[in-house]
């Protein structure tokens, strides 16, 4: 097989059985790979209504048809499962070197079913796959786990993914860590691994990826790489990482601060990628497999109270979530908090959202010293921030346990309007650090995101019009350059839908979305070209985007099957009811009226029913999802009306 290596590896931890099934060309053509095929496998294997932390859940790691090739930034893996946080569909995408290694071992996808009786890890050495005892790894942090497995195997070049103590303790925002410092952060995949008693997966691959038209592929991929290397967005990502944009977002008063009470801080300097470089914290710029951008960074604190702290990051999200959010402006403390989250296996976004919510509860007197067991939860208290991270990961004490359950569950216990300043929406996920009040396409994308309110399902960066390529794209989608401004609500549904498709295609290829929706050097046309040369299956730009739509729709249908409807497509209360306090977007809010208007148009564009948000039968059939339509029909989850012409 070309492009794909043609095998899906299944490991059933309950039955202790390991087998492979072929990845057929028909499946590849329909769902492309990575995120797309993952969604199809999840749809087929997970029955509606199951407990995400029970043995019926599955966790799928997917590589793409371009993984392990010179296609730009093609080292991404999608991890898909039913999330314990939302009880809905979840996919989380991660870099590092695991994907390429898995593919070189001979597998496009790895599907894990069941639940082990005692802690185990999976060792994949090409054709040799083994479920191994992990009792010596249980309780170990991410760094230790990686080190011990490498010693066990006797090879330092193998790649691991693992859950940290937070995953073992079923924290509702436990991440899966790959190649030590890369996080499949959101949705609590770490707890799904923990519930399966699966500590880690280690892989060594010595195989190869074959290409149908090697010369043409190599040349095209090299051209795109060169284009990417000259893109201003990509250059900035290499120099300063995602946190290079912090100061600019702060200028727009859109940098969530003090639990989203503010969008701006005067102390921003200490929370920027530029500061990390200038002050010598940066020790290396790091790339995922095959990536010419290299936006990841390793940082180290060399002196003072936090001397010896070493970690990947802090990213934009982390600087907001663990810096401005709790108002901790000491760079070194934020690096320390980031390190703790990374090695304990916690999602920095949700960890930050939960802690600053607790800080606001404390400020408002809703949580008292009695509830916090003596901890001073004032904003700006860095000792508290660090202490709470540990308490959450190990579920220590009353407060640690409360916060480890995530916002959705915590507000139920605390009550007293505390949900009003808790940054999660009806799906239950904590919001990532974008002020959607002043970025309207983002607000729509966040509301309809099947995972919950974050930017990692569809990013609509182009609406800011920050580069000539972005403006050009907005013109193409809306007919006029003037719509390249985040304050407009017009044409946002059109912008979101294009980005959804493009995002899905990019991830399905195994490529990083930074290349196609932050930088624009990678686009549907050159992805179609690379895909065609790699696999030998000719696809046009339109056809590949149509496959993207199919993936997006299938993921939506998973939620419909679980009982989700339009009511879940909303935003946190604070975004919908409290106007932005300062800045150029002062007074803007994601009012229900505004959001509803965009939602109507969005559903209409998709061929989904406005009342329920469910896809029409005709829409599903047009996308080649007849089986999905049949299942939903049986469950009574197809809209009664038909498509309006």
């Amino acid at each position, binding site marked *: 097989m070309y492009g794909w290596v043609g095998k899906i590896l299944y490991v059933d931890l309950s039955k202790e059985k390991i087998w492979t099934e072929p990845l057929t060309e028909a499946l590849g053509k329909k769902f492309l790979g990575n995120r797309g095929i993952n969604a199809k496998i999840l749809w087929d294997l997970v029955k509606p209504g199951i407990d995400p932390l029970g043995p019926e859940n599955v966790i799928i790691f997917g590589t793409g048809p371009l993984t*392990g*090739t*010179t296609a730009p930034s093609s*080292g991404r893996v999608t991890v898909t499962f039913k999330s314990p946080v939302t009880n809905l569909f979840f996919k989380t995408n991660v870099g590092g*070197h695991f994907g*390429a290694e898995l593919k*070189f071992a001979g597998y496009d996808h790895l599907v894990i079913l069941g639940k082990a009786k005692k802690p185990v890890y999976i060792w994949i050495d090409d054709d040799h796959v083994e479920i191994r005892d992990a009792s010596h790894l249980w309780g170990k942090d991410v*760094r230790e786990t*990686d*080190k011990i497995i490498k010693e066990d195997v006797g090879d*330092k*070049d193998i790649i691991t993914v693992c859950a940290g103590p937070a995953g073992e303790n079923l924290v509702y925002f436990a991440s899966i860590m790959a*190649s*030590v*410092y890369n996080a499949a952060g959101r949705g609590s995949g770490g707890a799904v691994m923990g519930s399966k008693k699966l500590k880690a997966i280690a892989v060594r691959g*010595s*195989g*190869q*990826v*074959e*290409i149908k038209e*090697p010369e043409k592929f*190599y040349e095209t991929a*090299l051209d795109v*790489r060169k284009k990417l*290397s000259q893109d201003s967005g990509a250059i900035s990502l*290499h120099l300063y990482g995602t946190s290079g944009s912090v100061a600019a977002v702060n200028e727009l008063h859109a940098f969530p601060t003090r639990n989203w009470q503010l969008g701006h801080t005067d102390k921003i300097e200490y929370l920027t990628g530029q500061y990390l470089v200038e002050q010598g914290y940066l*020790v*290396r*710029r*790091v*790339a*995922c*497999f*095959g*990536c*010419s951008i*290299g936006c990841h960074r*390793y940082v*180290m604190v060399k002196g003072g109270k936090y001397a010896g702290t*070493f970690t990947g990051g802090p990213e934009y999200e982390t600087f907001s979530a663990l810096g401005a959010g709790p108002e901790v402006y000491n760079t070194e403390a934020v690096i320390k908090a980031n390190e703790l989250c990374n090695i304990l296996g916690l999602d920095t976004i949700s960890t930050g959202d939960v802690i600053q919510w607790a800080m606001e509860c404390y400020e408002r007197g809703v949580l008292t010293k009695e509830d916090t067991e003596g901890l001073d939860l004032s904003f700006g208290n860095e000792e508290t921030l660090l202490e709470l991270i540990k308490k959450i990961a190990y579920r220590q004490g009353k407060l640690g346990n409360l916060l480890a359950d995530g916002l959705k569950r915590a507000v139920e216990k605390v009550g007293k309007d505390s949900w009003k300043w808790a940054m999660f929406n009806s799906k239950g996920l904590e919001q990532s650090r974008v002020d959607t009040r002043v970025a309207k396409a983002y607000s729509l994308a966040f509301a309809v995101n099947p995972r919950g309110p974050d930017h990692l399902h569809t990013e609509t960066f182009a609406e800011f019009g920050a580069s000539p390529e972005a403006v050009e794209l907005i013109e193409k989608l809306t007919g006029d350059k003037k719509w390249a401004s985040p304050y407009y609500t017009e044409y946002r549904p059109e912008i979101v839908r294009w980005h959804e498709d493009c995002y899905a295609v990019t991830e399905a290829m195994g490529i990083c979305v930074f290349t196609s929706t932050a930088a624009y050097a990678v686009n549907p046309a050159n992805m179609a070209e690379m895909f065609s040369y790699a696999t030998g299956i000719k696809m046009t730009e339109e056809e590949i985007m149509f496959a993207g739509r199919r993936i997006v729709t299938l993921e939506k249908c998973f939620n419909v099957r679980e009982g989700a409807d339009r009511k879940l497509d909303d935003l946190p209360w604070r975004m919908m009811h409290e106007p932005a306090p300062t800045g150029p977007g002062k007074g803007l809010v994601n009012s229900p009226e505004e959001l509803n208007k965009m939602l109507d148009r969005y559903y209409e564009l998709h061929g989904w029913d406005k009342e329920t948000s469910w896809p029409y039968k005709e829409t599903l059939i047009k996308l080649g999802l007849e089986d999905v339509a049949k299942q939903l029909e049986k469950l009574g989850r197809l809209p009664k009306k038909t498509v309006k012409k």
Partner: protein
Amino acid sequence: MEKCTGCKVCMLACSFTKEGVFSPMKSRIWILREESKSMFVPVVCEHCEDAPCQVVCPVGAIYRDHEKGIVLIDESRCIGCRECMWICPFGAVQLNLEKRVAVKCDLCNGDPECVKVCIPGALQFVSAKRPTATKGWERALKRSKALEMEVG
């Protein structure tokens, strides 16, 4: 070595150029990554002046191309005994598991593919006449920084 991001695209470019497939195992340059030490080091043939691999090769398959100044392996004479692999102080010689012969970097006839794809510029192909020229210049500029700032 400070510039290497550990992306390993050099390994893919190498295996593609030499073997026609994407396979790090078949690469003649190897990137070692040690996350906890932030240590990313490329391992590749250094084309030693007094090459131990050439000395130990029992069949004379390893020779020096004096014109180009590089050490090469004649695959048709190699018997796959692995002596060169063990003696190489850098670990830069591999056994090609299909051809069962020793392989290593031959600098792509003076135009190495790995250098072409290394966007961070960690891999460079420099003249043998003064290979340390760049380093010398960097150091010189650093030492004369005060003056440079005054003038420029």
